[in-house]
């Protein structure tokens, strides 16, 4: 039933994959038509980056304010933490597949589906991050006359940056990973090399793996850098 599509061991090699990335290769399955090459790689990578950035921005725009508000008020713990637990258990493949089948395919629909994946970790971490902030600076802030909004924005949020960013990074990893299977929802991402391997061949599979890994690591590196930028030196000192 399965396994009919691919031979168990493919003669893929790192060298072949790298060649595939930079130069279009002729493939035995396409009857001489050349596949791969830098142009296609760049196009697919930009597609994946685009849908990842949109989905992450959407998820953050929805989940962060809710998590911050609930955390500040100290209400809705069951919802905020429970959502994180449930979110972890939702199979990404099933979610994307179901949304593609029900609401249809395309960039917008995939963005929405991926944002749904990103919401739980951001919301949970925002809630937990704010709740975990040491109460004494908050008490002091209230006592010296900060409004609730000022307390949240000027005291609680800066102190919760590591946890907030951890949530956004988790969401990013889930989104960029799942964006790989974008082709099943009609958005041609790097996963096209993997999902339509009968087009790109075995070197395409390995190349896809390499490219997706590089993309994810690059984004992770960027977010780690952003987190460092947003974390006060005073906070790093007090944690040391």
């Amino acid at each position, binding site marked *: 039933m*399965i396994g009919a599509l691919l031979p*168990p061991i493919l003669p893929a090699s790192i060298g072949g994959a790298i060649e595939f990335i930079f130069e279009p290769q002729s493939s035995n399955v396409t009857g001489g038509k050349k596949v791969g090459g830098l142009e296609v790689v760049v196009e697919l990578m930009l597609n994946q980056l685009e849908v990842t950035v949109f989905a992450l921005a959407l998820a953050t725009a929805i989940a962060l304010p809710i998590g911050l508000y609930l955390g500040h008020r100290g209400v809705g713990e069951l919802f905020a933490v429970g959502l994180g637990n449930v979110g972890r258990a939702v*199979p990404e*493949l099933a979610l994307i597949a*179901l949304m593609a089948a029900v609401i249809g395919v395309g960039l917008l629909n995939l963005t929405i589906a991926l944002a749904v994946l990103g919401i739980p970790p951001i919301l949970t971490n925002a809630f937990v991050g704010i709740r975990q902030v040491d109460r004494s600076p908050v008490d002091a802030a209230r006592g010296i006359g900060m409004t609730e909004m000022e307390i949240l924005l000027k005291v609680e949020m800066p102190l919760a940056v590591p946890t907030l960013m951890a949530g956004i990074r988790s969401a990013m990893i889930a989104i960029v990973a799942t964006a790989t299977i974008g082709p099943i929802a009609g958005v041609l991402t790097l996963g096209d090399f*993997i999902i*339509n391997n009968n*087009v790109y061949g075995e070197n395409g599979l*390995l190349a896809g793996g*390499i490219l997706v890994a590089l993309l994810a690591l690059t984004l992770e590196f960027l977010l780690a850098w952003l987190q460092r930028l947003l974390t006060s030196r005073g906070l790093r000192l007090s944690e040391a």
Partner: protein
Amino acid sequence: MSSAALALPVAKVGEVGESFFHERTSETLPCQASSSHLFCFDWAKENIDSFGTPTLQHLELVLFSVLAGFVVAMALALLAHRRRWLQAPLLAITGVIYTVPSIAFFFLLLPLTGLGRDTVIVALSAYTLQIIYRNAIAGLANVPAAAKDAARGMGLTETQILWRVELPLATPEIVAGLRIATVSTVALATFAVFVNAGGLGVKIYGSGNLTFPTSIIIAGGIAMLMALAFHLALVGIERYATPWRRVAAA
């Protein structure tokens, strides 16, 4: 009716993209004449048996992956607990692995393990390392210094302190790490279908194409129930293994 027969038409070679999806709606399947039918009970009743094998395969993938990941992660954690300078580099390395999407990981392993179950187990277990390792290190670090000091003062050796004081006290964090890793692995194992390793993913994306909503919902539902079962089992284990916390909580 086999699931392969139910699968939607495979995209024609070289014609990925729009047409790939439009063709799907042209074929009428049971309950699919009207798109408002999200879940088709008739089909579910008839085909529920076909989910048995994928479920067992899925369970197998998860168990092997988590077990392997747990053994390796705990070994690393204990090593780093003794050799403190290893903690940061190991955290960084497991962190990098954690960042690589599992589906990409499968194909990175292609030259080494080829396609199939081994690849999935290696990749998914590597994926659990970060979570289990990080929690174990945190758990061991949170053991009160006074408890260790007292144990040392009573003449316990370092090994005895580890087994009788540190590991029991770190159990809640270690089990929590294991729980998170297991639940994530259940969800991620659906991707195994892309390397022909079976599992519930087959009922979602069978034979190279999307199945229809009823099948997706059932497969997703089974995966989530499996995750819930693991979650509850591990919460139970944690409670059983730490009777002193039950007392304190009361």
